[in-house]
């Protein structure tokens, strides 16, 4: 069957850029500029960061949202207008207007986007240079990422903790590294992120601008426990920060000075090996929620695994965690404690946990 000749002199009945087209272009243009500037002034997606670096990133983000909104409206606007205006009448077998190109227009929509992205690059570079500028009296904290926990070391005070405390308004330089696989140190509210890579020190600046407690999240896939590798950064005024440091130092000295009675030694080992990061234990002031709470483990350990005494259960739970996983808890406990812990430490920790009645 032969097709009806598809060809009729086109171009006669469909003007290319008529009044409705011009009107649509103006409306789209105005909407784009208005919406773009509204969004550019204050974007609804990312605001009130709690660090000075974060505040600059938020303003830059607003500018990007403004320009993106404008371009979004222009493209979607012309697309929707074309769908409505140039839809084919049911029986119309004619071809459209054979427009092959328009050099002026094509140069325009190559040059303008190129100009926009170059400007955005320059603005981004200025923000980047500013947030990564060192500060003369910045405090240094060494951060070590390890499978599924963060450790912080304060060289000024020779203090190691599982939680980051920083003074308000003072720039802190974090020197980040990893003890095993890659991790990423991320404080969402402060817009701070840097990968922790083994054998390499990576740095990032934090200048907190609002007191409070903000989560620290691991942002690089680091194994089974990646989703639960969280800690927190506590921002407090300088005096409160100093009080906290002295309290920590005092506890450390008392623990070191006193003969290591099993209880304090057990408590100290419980924190040193990161058990506190996942297992709640009131006696050791541990708040972790990833694994089961260990309050009163001593009295109930005997009847968890049939045939295993309390002591055997606790010891196997530490050195071979995968042997028994408490129901509806994720199987994410690191399995290398047998190598990481000395025999003496292991025994001291087991005895300490046995006494949790």
């Amino acid at each position, binding site marked *: 069957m032969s*097709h*009806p*000749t*598809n*060809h*009729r002199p086109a*171009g006669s009945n*469909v003007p290319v*850029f008529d009044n409705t*087209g011009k009107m649509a272009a103006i409306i789209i243009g105005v909407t784009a500029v208005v919406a773009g500037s509204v969004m550019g002034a204050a974007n609804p*997606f*990312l605001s009130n960061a709690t660090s000075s670096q*974060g505040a*600059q*990133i938020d303003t*830059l*983000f607003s500018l990007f949202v403004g320009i*993106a909104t404008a371009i*979004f409206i222009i*493209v979607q606007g*012309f697309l929707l207008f*074309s*769908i409505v205006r*140039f839809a084919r009448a049911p029986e119309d077998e004619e*071809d*459209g*207007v054979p*427009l*092959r*190109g*328009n050099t002026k*227009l*094509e140069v325009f*929509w190559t040059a303008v986007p*190129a100009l926009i992205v170059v400007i*955005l*690059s320059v603005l*981004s*570079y200025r*923000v*980047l240079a500013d947030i990564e500028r060192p500060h003369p009296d910045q405090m240094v904290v060494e951060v070590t990422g390890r499978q599924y926990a963060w450790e912080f070391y304060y060289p000024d005070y020779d203090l190691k903790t599982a939680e980051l405390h920083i003074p308000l308004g003072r720039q802190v330089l974090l020197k980040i590294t990893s003890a*095993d*696989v*890659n991790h990423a140190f*991320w404080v*969402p509210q402060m817009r701070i*992120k*840097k990968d922790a*890579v*083994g*054998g*390499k020190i990576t740095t990032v600046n934090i200048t907190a601008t609002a007191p409070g407690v903000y989560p620290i999240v691991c*942002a*690089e*896939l680091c194994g*089974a426990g*990646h*989703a639960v590798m969280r800690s927190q950064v506590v921002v407090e005024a300088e005096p409160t920060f100093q009080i906290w440091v002295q309290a920590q130092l005092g506890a450390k000295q008392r623990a070191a000075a006193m003969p290591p009675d099993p209880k304090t030694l057990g408590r100290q080992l419980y924190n040193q090996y990161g058990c506190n990061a996942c297992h709640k234990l009131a006696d050791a002031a541990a708040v972790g929620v990833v694994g089961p709470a260990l309050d009163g483990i001593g009295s109930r350990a005997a009847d968890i695994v049939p045939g295993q005494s309390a002591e055997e259960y606790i010891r196997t739970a530490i050195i071979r965690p995968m042997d028994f996983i408490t129901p509806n808890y*994720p*199987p994410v406990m690191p399995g290398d404690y047998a190598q990481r812990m000395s025999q003496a430490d292991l025994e001291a920790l087991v005895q300490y946990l046995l006494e949790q009645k």
Partner: protein
Amino acid sequence: MTADTVVGTGLVRHGGRKFSDYLIFNTDHKVIGIQYLVLAFVFFLFGGALAGLIRAQLATPDAQLLTGSSYNVTLTLHGTVMIFLWIIPAFVGAANYVVPLMIGANDMAFPRLNAVSFWLLVPGGLLMLVSFAVGGAESGWTAYPPLSVTTPIGQTLWALALQFIGFSSIFGAINFLVTIFNLRAPGMGLTQMPLLAWAVAATSIIILLGTPVLSGALLMLILQRWLGAQFFTPAGGGNPLLWQNLFWFYSHPAVYIMILPGFGIISEVLPIFARKPIFGYKLIAFSSMAIAVFGFLVWAHHMFTSGMDPFLRVPFMVTSMIIAVPTGVKIFSWLATIWAGKLRFTTSMMFGLAFISMFVIGGLSGIFLASVPIDIHVQDTYFVVAHLHYVLFGGSVMSIFAGLYLWFPKITGRMLDERLGRLHFWLTFMGFNLTFFPQHLAGLQGMPRRVYTYPPELWALNLLSSIGAFLMAIAVLPFLYNALRSLVAGKVAGPNPWRAFGLEWTVSSPPPVHNFPTPPVVEGDPYGYGERPLPGTTGVAAPAPGMAGGE
């Protein structure tokens, strides 16, 4: 022998008439194209099922469906399967079928190498399934060491599978480049070629130069896991960033491998259903080549927060920003193509228009990611997951569906049902936006990538996303039913159901085994709408005054 008989018997044949012709080492590019498309679609369903599991786990913060390692294995294989066994093979299948027809060739330049390329995918796919069953490929599709060195045996199988898939991809690229440049019909110069041929040529250049680098990186990973060579482990002196450099040197161009053929398909769909020539042919062709070359100079924007040399981030930020320009040029040219046209909203056209609309969102979020300070906050978060799905699903997969609805009549000789097509489109479109738009916000508010749980305040966004994922899963059913039913009961399509220009529409549907019984006559580029009559139509009217075909 007439042009329409299957040549050869036993395991090596040329031409596909019976079902068994498709299960053996067949050297007909049309059979191989269908083999690629069917294999890719099977893996699309498998990858989609994995995505369903992931979204089911993330529907609530404390679900226990998939936790820890099992979640990581699922997300790793979702990513790997969707990229290497669905999107790339689907484009290669479509291009394998259509490009020789479009340029007037009887087959690809190296038919046997073409069959080898396909049959290399079978061990690759099987090894990938075995690595899933055995478990262990837990380090994401990016497989960053040292994690990817410590994971169980499944990771080695995963790496071996990728080597097979890589070789298949490289041989395919060589085949396409020689076919496109050497086997064009007489009279078809480079500017009379369809834009899909330009896009496939640009894609093949990227595959040709990028894939070997991934192959080298995978070789090192396999040697480290097997022989203990300390390439990437800091303890042994190795450098984890070496893997990231080599991996992203291939994998960023790989995202252009996954979008350029989509650009090509859109440049074919829009003129047909707007009844208008493509606007700015030369600029679109040139921007494809610009993306192919420039795509190799931007890879480190994946490593802005990885501790790479701080100053080097600035040049990579600039190149990553500038590469948005050629893509922007294409989008504006497509808008100009449908402007003042006669738009016919077939399902293929709807997917094409949705491609433009969705890909713009993905492109714009890409500009955010190119800026280093903003990337510091959003790297490795769900903002990136939203970006990559807008360009991969909103872009590549929608263009694959646009291509499938356009060429299904040519491949099978039967039309797909438009009502079911429209149902498939609207379910996919709504499901897709419901799934992935909320993820922009989840990422900004602090949800990292690849986690099986999240803080309770992000529950609403994740629930929305999971509902959308359920909708997308349902959306595939009307397409499956439509395709299977139309194979036997669809309306007979005839050679040119869409009344389109292009040599592939001048032969029967499905085309004879050797494509062109008589050498095709090339009258100009395949976009003569409003300028010259359809080739092969009777009752030729005088061409439009003053424009005798071509520019």
